[in-house]
């Protein structure tokens, strides 16, 4: 029996999800379309059943699309990803490609050129991971030189472990390269240093912005000559990145909306995950900590163990630590009985 591929569409706008689901029914391979309105529910669905493609909105209120994509990249490396956005933002585009997305589309372009979008998506759906388009065993350098010699246009998607990069070739000319933390020439040099990389050719993107103007030969020569250790992520940078992924995964697993760590000293900046503006929350958390400690002393009530706040939109849980307060934000439907234990688990993940 022929199995139908599954597509998961993630967007916080449920009316857009409905429109998109209807639109995707036009795909020739007739995939099953499932939807999710939050990163957390999308990750749960991806855990529960195999999907072929994830369409992910980038701007979402809590866990945004880039965070979801960074988790997906590590947990579901076989999943094809399409980043969607309503904004024309080149930085978003670069960051999405650096996270290894297969396609980046503006929602506006979907409406302008629906058939092209469907064609691209269909090509992602039907592409076999072990088929002809997958050219794992050749040398990346050979392929780039071959594409250059044949004056081909293509996008090369390169993976090395959990790292993903893209190289854009137009009429045999290298026009751009992107990898997390670098783009253009710097990204190209970094990719050239990867060992044990696998790569495949994706459909060309004629409109992709050119950031590399040097000839391929000049670039290759420079990349051989420039053996800067700084180009490679240091073990510390890699450890930090691994920690970030672990933390975001823990957040998604426990179902937290966001986490903020608030240093005791005002002059040290608070850090947030899944939340953009942390300053106001951090200021309130500091005030709450001070008030709680004051009350504890006045009443001889013992040490302050934790505080919880809630309204119709969220639950907040504050856990005092040695040198910082850990704040976890939870959705309103979360079970308040479990939040203390769940927040402690998250705080342990952060501490480790």
């Amino acid at each position: 029996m022929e199995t139908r591929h599954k597509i998961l569409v993630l967007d916080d706008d449920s009316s857009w999800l409905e429109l998109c689901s209807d639109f995707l029914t036009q795909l020739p391979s007739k995939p099953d379309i499932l939807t999710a309105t939050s990163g957390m529910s999308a990750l749960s669905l991806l855990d529960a059943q195999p999907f072929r493609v994830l369409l992910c909105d980038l701007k979402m209120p809590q866990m945004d699309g880039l965070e979801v994509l960074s988790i997906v990249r590590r947990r579901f490396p076989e999943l094809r990803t399409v980043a969607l956005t309503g904004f024309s933002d080149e930085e978003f585009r670069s960051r999405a490609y650096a996270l290894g997305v297969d396609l980046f589309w503006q929602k506006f372009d979907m409406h302008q050129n629906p058939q092209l979008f469907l064609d691209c998506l269909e090509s992602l759906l039907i592409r076999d991971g072990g088929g002809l388009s997958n050219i794992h065993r050749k040398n990346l350098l050979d392929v780039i030189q071959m594409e250059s010699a044949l004056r081909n246009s293509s996008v090369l998607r390169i993976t090395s472990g959990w790292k993903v990069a893209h190289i854009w070739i137009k009429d045999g000319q290298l026009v751009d390269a992107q990898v997390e933390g670098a783009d253009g020439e710097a990204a190209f040099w970094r990719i050239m240093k990867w060992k044990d990389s696998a790569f495949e050719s994706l459909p060309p993107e004629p409109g992709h912005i050119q950031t590399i103007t040097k000839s391929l030969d000049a670039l290759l020569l420079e990349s051989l000559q420039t053996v800067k250790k700084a180009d490679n992520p240091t073990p510390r940078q890699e450890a930090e990145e691994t920690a970030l992924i672990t933390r975001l995964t823990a957040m998604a697993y426990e179902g937290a909306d966001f986490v903020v760590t608030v240093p005791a000293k005002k002059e040290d900046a608070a850090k947030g995950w899944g939340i953009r503006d942390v300053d106001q929350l951090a200021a309130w958390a500091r005030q709450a900590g001070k008030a709680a400690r004051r009350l504890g002393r006045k009443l001889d009530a013992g040490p302050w163990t934790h505080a919880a706040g809630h309204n119709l939109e969220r639950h907040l849980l504050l856990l005092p630590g040695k040198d910082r307060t850990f704040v976890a934000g939870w959705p309103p439907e979360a079970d308040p009985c479990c939040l203390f234990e769940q927040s402690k688990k998250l705080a342990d993940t952060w501490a480790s």
Partner: protein
Amino acid sequence: MGILNWLSKSGPDFQKLPAGSFTVDRHGSVLTTTVGSEFSRRRLGDIGREVLSLFHAARAAQMPLTGLDLNFAGLHIAAREMQGGAIIFLSPQNPLAASPPAEKERP
């Protein structure tokens, strides 16, 4: 009688943690209370004002809260915002309790 006097003075002077509930208006003045009179209104007012200041600060930080729980090793303070004022519940905690009962009381 002498021995009774001696016995009554022999124990250390423990301060009981407050138990009960009270309401405060938006200025922190105590309106009603079920907390025993051994715990002064002034100290209840101190608790009320700290709690109100946290509600106000949360509102100023664009995240108005309807409820706030402060948990200590020996006491749980649960406050619910009421039109600028608050109703505040004080529950001394059993140190042998396995999990914070404070979370379980929330509706």
